[in-house]
């Protein structure tokens, strides 16, 4: 029962076990042992299943409007009620999940990978690499997002890209816009970490840079990456609905959780028709919470400082 060790010790630990079992294997084993993380994973899987398989069992279809049934409260026929065009909210929430889950996860993954890698490289090599990467980050940060998006939307339209496929561009764009913050955070952590003794040890061992960065430095930045990712997923899901208006996202009537919530945009909707916004809101909440649970589990699993508790 040692106290959590420091990076030096951690390195020794790792060196000891490199042969026996790779850190990733250990991570998987630890992750599987983390109950909360597993619950998070299960919730996420259930969400996916519901969204991708659920609609197959629905008696309604996407384009089916029925003004006579508009704004119904949840009832036996419409379990979650209907919206202002008389569409089944249950079906829409599930269909919306396909878009929102995919966009949220993929876009976040893109920005996290770019942000973490660029941040780590900048922090590790410093000098020119740092200057160049960080100045690019500055430029990204300073660019006016909305005009760029409008322009991109127009360009995609001019190129006659199938509107159904623009969602891929959307994910890419949200991902590309989101990496700067994380890059700066990771960079500053790496700047500190690389000055620590255990890095001198890796120096002595003659490890390659890539290994130093990804094996020894990056694991220490996992917690912050996870926070960033959790926040990012929610952000991406909500951002999607905004970008749809610029020709970059889904086309109505295709629903997304974001555009379903945004559709309820007055005090009256809020008061009179909670069933229009609570389901998509809950879905985002559940997704974010699940991802956070998984994230915490991942962090504990990957964190060498956390010993076999």
């Amino acid at each position: 029962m040692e106290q959590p060790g420091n990076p030096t010790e951690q390195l020794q630990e790792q060196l000891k076990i490199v042969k026996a079992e790779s850190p990733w294997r250990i991570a998987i084993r630890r992750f599987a042992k983390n109950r909360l993380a597993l619950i998070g994973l299960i919730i996420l899987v259930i969400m996916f299943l519901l969204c991708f398989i659920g609609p197959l069992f629905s008696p309604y279809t996407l384009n089916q409007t029925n003004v006579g049934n508009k704004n119904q409260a949840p009832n036996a026929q419409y379990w979650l009620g209907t919206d202002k065009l008389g569409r089944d909210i249950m079906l829409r929430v599930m269909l919306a999940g396909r878009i929102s889950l995919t966009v949220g996860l993929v876009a976040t993954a893109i920005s996290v990978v770019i942000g973490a890698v660029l941040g780590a490289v900048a922090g590790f090599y410093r000098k020119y690499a740092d200057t160049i990467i960080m100045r690019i980050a500055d430029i990204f940060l300073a660019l006016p997002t909305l005009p760029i998006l409008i322009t991109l939307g127009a360009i995609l339209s001019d190129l006659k890209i199938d509107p159904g496929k623009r969602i891929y561009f959307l994910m890419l764009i949200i991902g590309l816009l989101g990496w700067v913050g994380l890059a700066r955070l990771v960079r500053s952590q790496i700047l500190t970490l690389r000055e620590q003794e255990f890095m001198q040890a890796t120096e002595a061992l003659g490890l390659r840079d890539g290994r130093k960065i990804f094996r020894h430095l990056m694991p220490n930045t996992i917690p912050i990456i996870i926070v960033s990712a959790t926040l990012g997923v929610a952000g991406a899901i909500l951002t999607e609905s905004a970008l749809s208006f610029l020709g970059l996202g889904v086309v109505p009537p295709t629903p997304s959780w974001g555009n379903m919530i945004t559709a309820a945009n007055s005090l009256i909707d809020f008061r009179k028709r909670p069933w229009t916004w609570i389901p998509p809101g809950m879905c985002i909440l559940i997704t974010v919470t699940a991802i956070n649970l998984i994230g915490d589990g991942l962090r504990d699993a990957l964190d060498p400082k956390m010993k076999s508790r």
Partner: protein
Amino acid sequence: MKKRLSLMLVTLMAFGSILAACGGDESAAPADTNTPTETSTDNTATPDESTAEEPDATEEPAAESDSAIGLTEAEDMSLNPAAATARTDSAIIGLVAPQGVFNPMFYQTTYDAYVNNLIFPSLLKIKGDGTYENDLAESIDISDDNKTYTFKIRDDANYTDGTPVTAGDYLFAMKVYMDASYDGQSDPLSWNVVGAQDYHDGKAKDISGIKVVDDKTVEVTVSDYDAMTQVNLGGVAPLSEAYYGKSYKQGDVSSIKELNNKPMGAGPYKLTKYTAGQEVDFEANENYYDGAPKIPKLIYKVTTDTTNMAMLQSGETDLDNVTVNEDNVEELKSMGFLDVDVLKNNGYGYVAMNNNNPLFTDPKVRQALTYGLNRAEVVEAAYGPYAEVINIPQSDVSWAYTAENINTYDYDPEKAKQLLDEAGWVEGSDGIREKDGKKFEVNFSATADNPVIDALIPIMTENYEQLGIKLVVETLDFNAIMEKKDKGDYDMFFAAWGLTPDPDSTVYVTDGAQNNSGYSNKEVDELYKQGKKELDLEKRKAIYAEIYQKINADAPEILMYQRTNMNAINGRLDGWDVTPYKEFPYSLHQVEISQ
């Protein structure tokens, strides 16, 4: 965190734009209605139809038809909150933030116009039915050739600084209009005033066509006239040369623009304080020539569509323009102390078809697409009783409106199929019609921030699928759609037009500045020319009726609906005279407080 921030930023920006656009014509989007036309202030005579093209947003279904439109009086004034009744000598009017361009020549938004309306009277003003009457002008004499207009300004008209309104001030205003550096929204050179071009080009120091006969009389000569000339010339608001002209030099109007936030005119109110983005305070002009306004103090308070109802409810405002939908109307009526006035909007929504595109050159195809779309269902779904399907591009409250010999294109898929067959588009093996090996596949662009689109897209997609037409829908930024339109690189898009009081327009004229669809019909062109030149109202009515019948038959675009606007007014204020053409500022000076 930054990541979150930047994403948030995107979200913010985009939501912002949505909300902005959502506000509907009256409330928000700078890009739409606020466009001044030369019709601007009181003169509103403008030749043209329409102000904005952006579809009017955020309206929703509502109550039942006929009763839906018109004024519903407050029922129980005892419910009036103390905050409102405490204001015994003032009224607060809620509106979207003006930009501080308080000059009738330069303003950009409707809300700046609302301010200008109170401060700068023109020679003419609009009446409730969309025609004009004298305001500052005591009389207008028109020469027999219709080219010389003699305006006589009222003797009792004085600026709020006590100096009289003179003919010279009119000339001064005209000079500013004609100045080369004038960058307002009007197109004064199109008024054909003799000598205007020379003044504009700096070749002359005066405008030869404008003669100051005496202090109160000015004579304007035009090189060519039309139905709009009198309104164009009479729509000018004289500007005090003594106040505005101190540092004016030909070719540089910047000294006048510098006074934009310190306006001084001869109107019923004078501006006492302007706090950007918050409020504009006015004080009654005791010496107003039409009689001192009955409310001594007036405040324009900035509201947004998210809170304007709440502020009416709490009594913080006395009047506001609220987006029309069933919820809002019901809510406002239930407050009991508000007069709720639902008015026809001067405008209509439509689906444009590119008439130059081989797909749509055949009128039969365009008719088929109109027959084949269940417009009534779309409008019902989007607006309920607060909008109507239209079949001619004119408001049914206009004098130019006609219902005679107009095909209503009621939903009829069989007829549509038959027309398509006749046009040579036959169903292919995959169920999609084709002609000469080309599939009938249509790209449709629309702005997304709008209740019509929500209903239109699914219904349209399904309706057209039945006809054997494949619809590919995209949502885009409004300006991006307009650019596609300008380049002619589009099949169909959804938009809306605003209507001006006068039916003259270039929307359906071959190569007209506003012609979006590329529609061309020589007869229509000729009729529009006649209509513009004709000064007799009855004759004009006949001409425009004919125009609308031809357009109706050609179906250059799918006309969709005319919707409504709503003013909610605290019942303690009486004496309004508001119509779709005559907005609330025009009768403010006669409104009184009756507790």
